[in-house]
């Protein structure tokens, strides 16, 4: 980064004269955000599904049922915590926490604003990608330790799906790295500053000739959106928890607070994915209108608005599309998405070379 920016961390360290306090505040802020966001997202899921299915949704708790998520959380908290007799207790209890840790660890490099990113490392993109593989272990652990055939089958399906869809996602991420010349999410954001036509979905900053590359970047954005849906096990890729076949997949045996942890982890992953789409293709915390409404605080506003839009897209798709069959699922990834991603990578590489 060219000029030195006084980040939230620097400001807190100066204010409190202690690095430790600044570290703790910076690390805990995303957690507070995550809890609030999860409540909003649960309400969104309930209300959007109701709207799509022409129902009213929850209406009794509070005006228009807006306190419903709080009621849901309280319900989950006071439910009986059951561990099945034949389950492996240690691993069964460890799995939900591992899942949530993996999901929350991703928040470490998400830049919420030009002045606030918990850890502004140069390898931000690579970090998110690497830490995502921890979730796979959590799923296998939960599925195996439950000692239930549905759980195990769900875990196997989930892992094979995540491993396959990581490949097109990785190629798309590489393409963005080629475009932005950096893996630092903050730098990627800065490259897209200015008006909305500087976003990478519209080919990034450049002359009018970038019209040649726009088709490829748009396709890349769609590919990443699809691959990320598969990685978070959301419909239409939710065969790991397909009710009609597997009861509830790898978290069949979980109840109470431990189920809530899985639930939380899923919502956290949804946000990370939405945030990545925002950062990689839609300018992150940049205002779409040049310097109008831009700045550190407006940055938070724009980032969260854009990310919430993609969370909305995920919920919208969940209630619109039917789920894929198991045998179609791998075919979509390996036979369609990977070749298309390679073509886009090649095209963008050539474009970057000659521009």
């Amino acid at each position, binding site marked *: 980064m060219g000029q030195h920016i006084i980040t939230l961390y620097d400001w807190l360290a100066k204010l409190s004269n202690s690095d430790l306090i600044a570290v703790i505040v910076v690390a805990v802020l995303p957690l507070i955000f995550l809890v609030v966001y999860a409540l909003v997202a649960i309400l969104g899921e309930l209300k959007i599904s109701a709207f799509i299915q022409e129902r009213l949704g929850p209406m009794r708790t509070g005006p228009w049922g807006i306190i419903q998520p709080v009621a849901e959380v309280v319900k989950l908290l006071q439910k009986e915590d059951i561990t099945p007799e034949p389950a492996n207790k240690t691993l069964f209890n460890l799995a939900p926490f591992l899942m949530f840790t993996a999901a929350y660890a991703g928040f470490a490099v998400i830049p919420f604003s030009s002045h606030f990113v918990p850890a502004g490392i140069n390898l931000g993109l690579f970090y998110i990608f690497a830490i995502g593989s921890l979730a796979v*272990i959590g799923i*296998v652990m939960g599925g195996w330790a439950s000692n239930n055939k549905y759980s195990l089958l769900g875990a196997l399906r989930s892992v094979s799906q995540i491993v396959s869809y990581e490949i097109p996602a990785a190629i798309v991420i590489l393409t963005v790295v080629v475009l932005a010349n950096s893996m630092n999410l903050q730098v990627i954001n800065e490259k897209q500053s200015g008006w909305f036509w500087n976003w990478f979905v519209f080919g990034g900053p450049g002359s009018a000739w970038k019209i040649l590359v726009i088709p490829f970047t748009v396709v890349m954005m769609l590919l990443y959106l699809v691959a990320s849906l598969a990685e978070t096990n959301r419909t239409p890729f939710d065969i790991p928890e397909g009710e009609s076949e597997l009861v509830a997949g790898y978290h069949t045996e979980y109840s109470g607070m431990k189920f809530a942890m899985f639930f939380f982890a899923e919502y956290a992953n949804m946000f990370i994915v939405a945030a990545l789409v925002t950062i990689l293709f839609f300018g992150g915390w940049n205002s779409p209108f040049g310097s109008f409404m831009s700045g550190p605080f407006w940055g938070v506003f724009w980032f969260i608005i854009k990310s919430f839009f993609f969370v909305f897209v995920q919920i919208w798709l969940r209630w619109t599309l039917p789920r894929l069959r198991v045998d179609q699922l791998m075919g979509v990834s390996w036979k369609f998405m990977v070749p298309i991603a390679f073509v886009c990578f090649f095209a963008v590489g050539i474009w970057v070379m000659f521009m």
Partner: protein
Amino acid sequence: MDLVTIIFYIFAAVIVISAAVVVFSKNIMYSAFSLLFTFFGVAAVYVLLNADFLALTQILIYIGGILVLIIFGVMLTTKITGVDIKTGITGKFQVGLTAFLAAVFFIVLAIMYSKVQWNVKSAKPLQDTITPIGHSLLTDYILAFEAASVVLLIAIIGAVMIARRKKS
């Protein structure tokens, strides 16, 4: 002690304890899952050594790839054969020999550690590791890089050839 030293000792403890579980656990699934914490701790030590790229590669390859493969192997074979795989003591002779060799190796390492004159120099923390790595991979080590990519390509093609449906 400053924060970094405390963090180092925490992760060192994690590595040692989880590695001990890997070796001494009777249940092979515990060993496999305990390996997760060992790999993770090693990645953390890499970060403290200013090798962040190596740390993330460690997480991606070892946890996301190799560990998943190990767990799948153990899990599927256990369920298919119906025999609970347990690691046990194979024989007194093997155990004795291994313990002896390990002890000798440890003593040699300890003597080396105390005898060698270590030239310790505090390194400048690197701001950017990925750019130098990228530059050297595509200039000085281009041959090794290309050779590795060709080997991986051959491995992928070979895997597809083995896995594809035979025409009968």
